[in-house]
């Protein structure tokens, strides 16, 4: 049982590219960092049964998801010598072309930051209770069954 409130990894709606630039900029005072690896998920306009996706509505089991994000992050720190790991995931509506996931790993050297980023993205896909509902151009909806 945790007495502190779990950290929140969710942001409402799309992730703003300006926010990403700002996050990068805040790391210029950490003088041990030599490499940043960043992954961004962007909503595609996939065509399904003749209609294009206009957006994705993300939902999650928030309390559990935040615990799983924290665990994924901790495991990365145990496995690689990392300076920083940041994860942001959208909840709610993200339109086509907008960003829904931002993973940001920093380390002294390139290999660790790339490997950690790759593993964290895989873990997020497989371990975090998040679901997508595609909103089509004509406002019909379709749950994504990966």
């Amino acid at each position: 049982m945790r007495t502190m409130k779990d950290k929140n990894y969710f942001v409402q709606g799309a992730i703003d590219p300006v926010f990403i630039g700002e996050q990068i900029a805040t790391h210029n005072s950490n003088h041990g960092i030599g490499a940043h690896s960043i992954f961004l998920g962007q909503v595609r306009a996939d065509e399904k049964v003749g209609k294009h996706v206009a957006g994705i509505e993300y939902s999650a089991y928030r309390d559990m998801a935040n615990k799983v994000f924290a665990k994924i992050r901790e495991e990365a720190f145990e496995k690689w010598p990392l300076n920083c790991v940041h994860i942001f995931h959208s909840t709610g509506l993200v339109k086509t072309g907008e960003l829904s996931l931002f993973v940001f790993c920093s380390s002294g050297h390139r290999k660790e930051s790339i490997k950690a980023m790759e593993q964290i993205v895989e873990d997020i896909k497989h371990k975090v209770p998040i679901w997508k509902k595609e909103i089509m151009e004509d406002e019909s909806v379709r749950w994504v069954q990966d």
Partner: protein
Amino acid sequence: MQINVIFFGVLSDVVGKNMLTIQDTDNMTDLKRKLITNYPDLIDYTYRMAVNQQMVEDNHRLFDNDIVAIMPPFAGG
């Protein structure tokens, strides 16, 4: 003895609600049988289960006031 069951993603549409309670069950296998009896459409869906936010398998023991999450395959990112 009462178990709280919460549904996510497509499964809350299938069941028609986000949450319900089930009485008199003490393991996941029995709980799943009771759910399928009440909501036969569930049988067409694959799902994973968590008890009190921990992933569990079928034979998991249940206790009074446990929170069971019934979850479709994850699709984050």
